[in-house]
């Protein structure tokens, strides 16, 4: 019925909305592959396999990520990571990793459709985020390149502050995306 199912975007309620309110913008980042990874970083076989499959080391410190080409591997917990990659790589990466890992205890789960990413850009980004986020987002406490899992209103989010100093990616379960979107919009109105 569809020419190609690849044409079908992730359907969160705010997809296809792009809002410019003054100086700040919000956009839902359509297709992005996401893999949730669990394993024991103390197990050399596990780390090595990840390195090999993903092309980068596991980030071991909280609130950090590593990157390789267009992939980013975020720390989520002491035994949990999240890979952002091209959607088309998901199956290959999963397979490679599983092959590398063999019997080593791990879990790799496709969560590309579990989360969506809302991109907030603009000079007021921090002002907007902190309305709902209890983290200190001041540049001294949260420099560019930082990530953190925290809260935005009622939603759990993964924040990623890009190196350009004005782009924030907010990853959220997509059923909360509309809420987060409206939350930020409402903040924009409250000057």
């Amino acid at each position: 019925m569809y020419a190609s199912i690849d044409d079908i975007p992730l359907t969160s309620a705010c997809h296809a909305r792009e809002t410019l309110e003054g100086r700040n913008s919000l956009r839902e980042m359509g297709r992005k592959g996401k893999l949730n990874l669990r394993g024991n970083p103390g197990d050399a076989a596990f780390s090595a396999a990840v390195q090999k499959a993903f092309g980068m080391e596991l980030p071991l410190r909280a609130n950090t990520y590593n990157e390789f080409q267009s992939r980013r591997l975020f720390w989520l917990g002491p035994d949990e990571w999240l890979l952002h990659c091209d959607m088309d790589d998901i199956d290959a990466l999963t397979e490679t990793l599983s092959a590398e890992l063999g019997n080593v205890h791990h879990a790799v789960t496709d969560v590309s459709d579990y989360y969506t990413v809302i991109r907030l850009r603009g000079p007021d980004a921090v002002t907007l985020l902190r309305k709902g986020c209890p983290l200190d987002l001041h540049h001294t406490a949260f420099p560019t390149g930082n990530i953190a899992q925290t809260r935005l209103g009622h939603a759990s989010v993964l924040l990623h502050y890009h190196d350009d100093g004005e782009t924030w990616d907010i990853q959220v379960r997509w059923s909360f995306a509309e809420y987060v979107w409206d939350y930020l919009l409402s903040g924009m109105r409250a000057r």
Partner: protein
Amino acid sequence: MLLIECPWCGQRDQTEFHPHGEAHIARPEDPDALDEAAWGDYVFFRKNPKGLHYERWVHSHGCRRWFNVMRDTVTDHIHASYKPGDPKPELPITADGGDTTGTPKT
């Protein structure tokens, strides 16, 4: 409003966490070996101390890890956070009488 140290993510606002009651209550190895009173004790009865309390929290909006906190239930002062499986800390936490929550000594 507590400021809680997640042993992994660092100090975070209380609203990122959820408390889960008393810590260090191991599930009995062999429940059948317990009489009704002992089993009831495990399921329902708690220390509920006025003073030092060892309790579980989960960093629900963060890394989703469970960990333990040693808190005074009178002052609500948190003396320590530690990973599950780590031994129960005792007071004083550090030799100089301060503690590990980052509260400066004065």
